[in-house]
């Protein structure tokens, strides 16, 4: 008998009968051919999270995003009228990468009235229009007012700026996000502007890594120390159960009930947790962000802890009961490597004590995240060994099942269109 009531069907997985309950293949995570297909079938079609609106504080603010596996760099900017726009970060003249500092591989941000190419000095307005061609009359029938940067579809939802690399997106961003994720609109993300950013290059398929962040079944055995300092707390056989799972189109979410460490006796805490009043689930003091908070805890769990929204394909939004949030992004760079980006957002600290609470939460994220990164290299190796071709998944791993099914469906749809000749 579990701790939480399951749907009438008896399990979360059977509540969504299209998922099945049989073992699944992870061939999609070891095959170089599948990786090539995924790039076009998913990453060149889906809405991709590029950055937060707060990264563009003024008209003229811009940042670049590098999508390494897609061989694409994007300029995201707020133009003179305040409109957010995205362009390929490529000069119209001879294809030089337009904006970079340090090395062309590095992403940058800043403020500009115009974009100037380092190579031959062509210039562009924030709306992408070409405004200056050096020695224009040496060219042949070329007029600057007829050319410009290549635009990329771009839209903002709840302060999250998304781009879409397809010629014509199948759906608007709102329609794409659906009702479950869309319900978060109005959550005070814009109050949580103190940001810690992390980056890792991992030796695993992007989906293998996401899988570890969409189930909590692994937490007691792998992150035993996270449970607490005492031998009783560090019980790898502790049975973790999430309170609620929900699917909506390609997206999925899980809500956990909270550990609410601020109610624990001191002997079950690490001394630094008690000192900073912070830890795995964040600072114990929740800043006032107004309320009610739309979209969170959709099933109304009494001791709600975390909402984990998996926005297809590669964005995770974690919303904590203590009023802070985290985003993860996973960018595939080959069939067995990816770049991981994690951002933690807090209501800005008003004093050193609050800063230290944020710092300890940020440390905790990295310490246990390293266990995931380190272990998943081993998962990738294990999968590539080919000793097994199918793997059992339990009810607490329902999101893993849904994710691989969704990826497969998008790739199948793309292949079918391609065979029919309807994909260019």
């Amino acid at each position, binding site marked *: 008998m579990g701790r939480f009531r399951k749907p009438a069907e008896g399990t979360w997985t059977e509540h969504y009968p299209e998922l099945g309950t049989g073992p699944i293949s992870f061939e999609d995570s070891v095959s170089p051919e599948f990786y090539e297909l995924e790039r076009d079938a998913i990453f060149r079609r889906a809405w991709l999270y590029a950055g937060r609106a707060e990264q563009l504080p003024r008209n003229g603010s811009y940042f670049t995003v590098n999508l390494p596996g897609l061989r694409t760099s994007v300029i995201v900017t707020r133009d003179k009228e305040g409109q957010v726009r995205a362009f390929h970060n490529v000069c119209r003249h001879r294809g030089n990468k337009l904006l970079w500092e340090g090395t062309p591989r590095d992403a940058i941000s800043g403020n500009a009235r115009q974009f100037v190419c380092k190579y031959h000095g062509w210039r562009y307005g924030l709306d992408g229009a070409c405004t200056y061609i050096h020695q224009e009359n040496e060219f042949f029938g070329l007029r600057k007012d007829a050319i410009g940067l290549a635009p990329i579809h771009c839209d903002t939802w709840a302060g999250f700026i998304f781009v879409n690399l397809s010629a014509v997106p199948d759906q608007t961003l709102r329609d794409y996000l659906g009702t479950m994720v869309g319900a978060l609109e109005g959550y005070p993300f814009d109050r949580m502007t103190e940001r810690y950013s992390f980056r890792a290059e991992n030796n695993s398929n992007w989906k293998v890594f996401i899988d570890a962040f969409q189930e909590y079944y692994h937490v007691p055995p792998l992150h035993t120390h996270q449970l607490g*300092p005492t031998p009783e707390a560090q019980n790898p056989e502790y049975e973790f159960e999430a309170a609620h799972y929900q699917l909506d189109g390609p997206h999925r979410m899980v809500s956990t009930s909270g550990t609410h460490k601020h109610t624990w006796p001191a002997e079950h805490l690490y001394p630094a947790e008690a000192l900073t009043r912070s830890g795995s689930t964040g600072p114990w003091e929740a800043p006032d962000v107004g309320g009610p908070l739309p979209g969170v805890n959709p099933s109304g769990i009494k001791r709600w802890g975390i909402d984990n929204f998996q926005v297809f394909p590669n964005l995770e939004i974690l919303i904590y009961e203590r009023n802070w949030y985290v985003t993860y992004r996973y960018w595939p760079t080959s069939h067995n490597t990816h770049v991981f980006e994690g951002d933690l957002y807090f209501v800005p*600290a008003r004093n050193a*004590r609050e800063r230290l609470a944020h710092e300890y939460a940020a*440390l905790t994220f*990295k310490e246990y995240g*390293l266990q995931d990164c380190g272990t998943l*290299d081993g998962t990738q190796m294990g999968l590539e060994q080919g000793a097994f071709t199918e793997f059992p998944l339990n009810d607490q791993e329902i999101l893993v099942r849904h994710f691989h099914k969704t990826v497969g469906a998008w790739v199948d749809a793309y292949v079918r269109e391609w065979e029919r000749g309807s994909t260019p």
Partner: protein
Amino acid sequence: MTDALLPAEFADLEPWAATWCLPTEPQRWERRLNTSMEEMRAFYDAFFPRAEEAIIWCDRFPLDDMPADAERLLQLLHSLLMVSYAVEVWKQPEVINGGSARIDRILEPRP
């Protein structure tokens, strides 16, 4: 003492200041991985009992306008938290089961 790094009230922590007053997480992380457990335990044992007092001291100033010595005391507190994971949790400088992974902090608030 004119070359003191910390507020006079925390003069007993001066021996640790030159090593552990580090403004960024990447610096504190590298320092942890390159310091022996004996040394980190000594720093932790000396500072932890005074940490609450140090926080109260730092809280007297706005974060964006701290005197240099108070800001260094806050850096020392950041290092104490960094070291606490080695001392309290892993009992070694590295994360247990971290393999060869690295996660780089590329942006953070200051101080």
